[in-house]
């Protein structure tokens, strides 16, 4: 085989891989938009649902989902940044590093239903907190913690030593170096992690459906220990009544809204990241 042919073959096979990926994505988006768009109207977005979702809108599902992921991000961010700083600045022992990595990867590998069961047993049964959206946020933050921690760690760890040395040589103490040099950089990494984490968390049903959500009849929570409605659990409920065309229609509509939320989160995270200047390698 000539080298040129080999090159072309290789080029073609990577091209095909990319094409297949994009086609799958386009197909998914296409179907969701095609089926979901007819369901969407201002009324659908601003009214509460009736008849278990077969009619009415999804405003409280939207607000519930947003509430859940925003609080899970708020809980997750300081933990992730703290772990990342500790790991890159204080932990010198190789073995301990390996152990922490193993723990982080294991946490990431835990199936989401296990988080749900854990929440149910620990928070609801043992601590007797009842069905609460805040517990849902805690559970979701545990789920996205590994992703956020690792990306914060990577961006902090990639800061060249000379930046640490330069700032210490200017008389900054360790804490000031962390605040003025490392955290800004870690923050932008954590945002990237959050973007990936939230996109995953907002679509999760299993971890929250026993502990944080109701299926109907709930509006905005007025305390930390009330259930909320969420989009994924709503979609689940609607697909269970798939024989009813109105319910199916609304399921597509809610799915489209869910996808749009993920897109909005991603874009805003991107903006935050762009506005935040970071140390780049030269």
């Amino acid at each position, binding site marked *: 085989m000539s080298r040129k042919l080999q090159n072309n073959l290789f080029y073609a096979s990577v091209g095909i891989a990319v094409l297949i990926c994009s086609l799958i994505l386009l197909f998914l988006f296409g179907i969701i938009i095609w089926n979901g768009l007819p369901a969407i109207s201002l009324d659908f977005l601003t009214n509460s649902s009736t008849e278990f979702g077969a009619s009415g809108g999804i405003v409280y599902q939207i607000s519930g989902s947003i509430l859940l992921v925003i609080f899970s991000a708020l809980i997750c961010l300081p933990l992730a940044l703290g772990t990342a700083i500790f790991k890159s600045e204080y932990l010198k022992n190789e073995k301990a590093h390996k152990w922490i990595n193993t723990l982080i990867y294991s946490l990431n590998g835990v199936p989401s239903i296990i988080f749900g069961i854990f929440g149910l047993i620990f928070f609801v049964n043992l601590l007797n907190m009842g069905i609460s959206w805040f517990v849902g946020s805690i559970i979701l933050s545990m789920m996205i913690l590994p992703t956020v921690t690792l990306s914060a760690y990577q961006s902090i760890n990639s800061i060249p030593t*000379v930046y640490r040395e330069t700032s210490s*040589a*200017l008389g900054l103490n360790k804490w000031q170096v962390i605040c003025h040099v490392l955290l800004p950089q870690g923050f932008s990494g954590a945002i990237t992690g959050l973007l990936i984490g939230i996109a995953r968390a907002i679509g999760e049903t299993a971890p929250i459906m026993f502990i944080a959500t109701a299926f109907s009849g709930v509006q905005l929570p007025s305390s930390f220990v009330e259930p909320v409605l969420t989009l994924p659990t709503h979609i689940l409920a609607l697909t269970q009544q798939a024989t009813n065309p109105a319910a199916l229609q609304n399921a597509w509509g809610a799915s489209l809204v869910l996808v749009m939320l993920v897109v909005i989160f991603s874009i805003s995270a991107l903006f935050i990241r762009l506005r935040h200047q970071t140390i780049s390698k030269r």
Partner: protein
Amino acid sequence: MEQKAIKPNLSVVGKTLKEVIQIKNFQVWIKENHILANIQLSIPKNEITCIIGPSGSGKSTLIRSINRINDGISGLNIQGEIIFNGLSVNDKDVDVAQLRTQIGMVFQKPCVFPKSIKENVLFGIQHLKNLSKLEKLQIAEEHLKTVSLWKEVSHRLNDKAISLSLGQQQRLCIARTLAVKPEVILLDEPTSSLDPVSTRAIEEMMVKLKENYTIIFVTHNIQQAKRIADNLIFICDGKVIEQGPASRIFSCSTNPQTKAYLRDEYCDC
């Protein structure tokens, strides 16, 4: 004003010449390697002391020990004393951050933070909360003028520092170090990544700065040392081979190793 006029006379007299830093029996090991052996040095005030020596001889290790930037290296072991204005810098109760505000350092490659030019100059004093905006601007102006960068950047203080040329960035780094108001400035081959024009600009700046600061300048470049050094320290293989007034060493060193190095930039010790 008068004091300044007196100063040069005093240094001519020589007797009252004050030593800012004294290094006594200083040794460094990194893991099993003996990097510096038995260093005895004294650094006179308001002069430029150049440290020369072949690559790997321990020049960086030596000056990085003075402001304790080396502390972070794992397996570091030291013996002996470095005394700065009567203070033994390796004492347990020394406030290292405070020490580093008195002994500033400029590194080999210009290292600017992802911030504006002005913020970079103020980086070392940003936590002093009681400075007004105007005062900050004045401080930035003062130090940018000292490093003769003011004319070039005065109209774009809020631009990113990374947009400056390498030579300008290095001068910015020096201004940033000066803003902390140190007494001693350590420079580790500050011009080795710069063009000849920027290099000359920094050399001239050093000669002006020594009026107010004590300067320790590591260089690979013997010609450079010839141009700016008042004192010379020649280090080879972790040992001080010769030290003294630069004029004497350059004109009539009696040490065969120094002579060889000054002639061929090569040393087999």
